[in-house]
């Protein structure tokens, strides 16, 4: 047996090196882009938080006013995401399963919150739901105030989060096809049973993902909320607004502390969502 002769250049054991060119250039661009725009600012924020020292940080990040703002931001985001989970599923179902005039229009509209600037959404929602608005006026006749309070916040976040559930569930519903429903029908199941026991479990992962995405987006939302919220400290002040208020008072330390709390929760949520999606992907392809 001849001995193995080693030529000049070698790649690592078992690593597939793509023959396509351009890696160093594109990777270089990508890393520079991400470092300047993302990593550097993140580091600056964390370092500033760290230099506050633990006591000062905790005082600023968990003051009574800050906690009230977290409760509102997280609570309203949760409520809005829940509403969107139910109705978003409805919209996705209707768009995928039924044909009716205006379906395309409806589908296009679902993406409006992605395309419309948040400030425009904010003043528009206020116009509609304030007690002089198209919906707010009849509502106030029933004693319901839909703006300038936490309810307004939930409405705004429902607007913002609407596409997340619909767009995450749609492809799954489309891929599902009729096969398993037909099988269940031959076994004697009625429509509601089929939906509850056959369809829902299949789309649950997508529903959860959409819910989580809508929630994550809602927590940090600013522009669409501040017009309809009322912005009263301790009552209807969202966390991002508190940050802006602190900045206007030149309390950079306070602003940074609260921002760090928000950032860490966003990153944690992102990790959870990615981990969940990854697990689902593996489970499905196994």
């Amino acid at each position: 047996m001849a001995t193995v002769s080693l030529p000049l250049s070698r790649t690592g054991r078992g690593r597939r090196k793509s023959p396509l060119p351009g890696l160093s250039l594109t990777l270089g661009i990508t890393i520079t882009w991400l470092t300047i725009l993302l990593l550097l600012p993140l580091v600056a924020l964390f370092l500033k938080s760290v230099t506050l020292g633990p006591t000062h940080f905790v005082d600023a990040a968990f003051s009574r006013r800050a906690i009230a703002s977290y409760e509102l931001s997280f609570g309203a985001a949760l409520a809005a995401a829940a509403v969107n989970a139910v109705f978003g599923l409805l919209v996705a179902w209707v768009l995928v399963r039924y044909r009716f005039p205006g379906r395309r229009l409806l589908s296009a509209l679902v993406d409006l919150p992605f395309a419309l600037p948040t400030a425009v959404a904010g003043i528009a929602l206020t116009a509609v739901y304030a007690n002089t608005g198209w919906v707010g006026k009849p509502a106030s006749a029933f004693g319901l105030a839909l703006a300038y309070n936490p309810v307004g916040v939930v409405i705004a976040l429902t607007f913002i989060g609407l596409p997340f559930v619909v767009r995450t569930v749609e492809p799954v519903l489309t891929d599902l096809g009729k096969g398993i429903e037909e099988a269940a029908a031959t076994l004697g199941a009625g429509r509601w049973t089929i939906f509850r026991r056959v369809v829902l479990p299949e789309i649950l992962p997508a529903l959860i993902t959409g819910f989580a995405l809508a929630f994550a987006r809602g927590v940090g939302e600013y522009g669409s909320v501040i017009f309809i919220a009322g912005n009263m400290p301790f009552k209807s002040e969202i966390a991002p607004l508190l940050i802006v208020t602190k900045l206007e008072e030149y309390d950079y330390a306070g602003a940074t502390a609260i921002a760090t709390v928000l950032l860490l929760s966003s990153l944690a949520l992102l990790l959870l969502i990615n981990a969940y999606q990854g697990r689902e992907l593996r489970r499905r392809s196994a």
Partner: protein
Amino acid sequence: MTITVRNIVKGFGNYPALKDVSLDIEDGAFVALLGPSGSGKTTLLRIIAGLETAEGGQILFGGEDVTDRAPQDRGIGFVFQNYALFRHMTVAHNIAFGLDVMKRSQRPEKAAIKARVEELLELVQLPGYGDRYPAQLSGGQRQRVALARALAREPSILLLDEPFGALDAKVRRELRGALREIHDRVGLTSLFVTHDYEEAFALADKVAILGSGRIEQYGTPEAVQKKPANDYVREFLS
């Protein structure tokens, strides 16, 4: 152009796909690389093409070491299993691609390129198909276009990865004959990968049987059939 494969080693993670592979292919030969799925035959073909890098060993074309040379500079034609036609280009543009991307100093005139495309379409028996798009062609037709495209630059070596894998039996037989004829006419050195030994025996001058990371036997179809080198080969041919 001769192809010399010397002691090629390649693993994937912990799996040693190719342990020590050596092969000598004569100029103008039509060789089949045979083996079951997962035996590493496509990997070996891609290493010869330069689409993958081996961990050890050398590849020589006509005695020249091309181990570290980029695929663009190896002067090969490669036919992919799934054709890899450029879906948004016409058949004519697909075939002309290898000529269109040449450096200005080496590129033929437009008219010459056009003529060559026509010539190749005739060769693969698809005259007049130049303006169609890959999506409009059948599997067998796409394979012919892939072949024509690979031949456009007049390579001295033709590499084919399971060229008839996705086609039905009748089309396969037609294309087999066409491929052999083209090989003989153009005078290429051809190496094609397949798991179908009947095909290999019908087409090739010599077959190389790859198993457990090594070439188990390399010889004419008759020799391999009459005198299998070991149990592995015998098993494979049964």
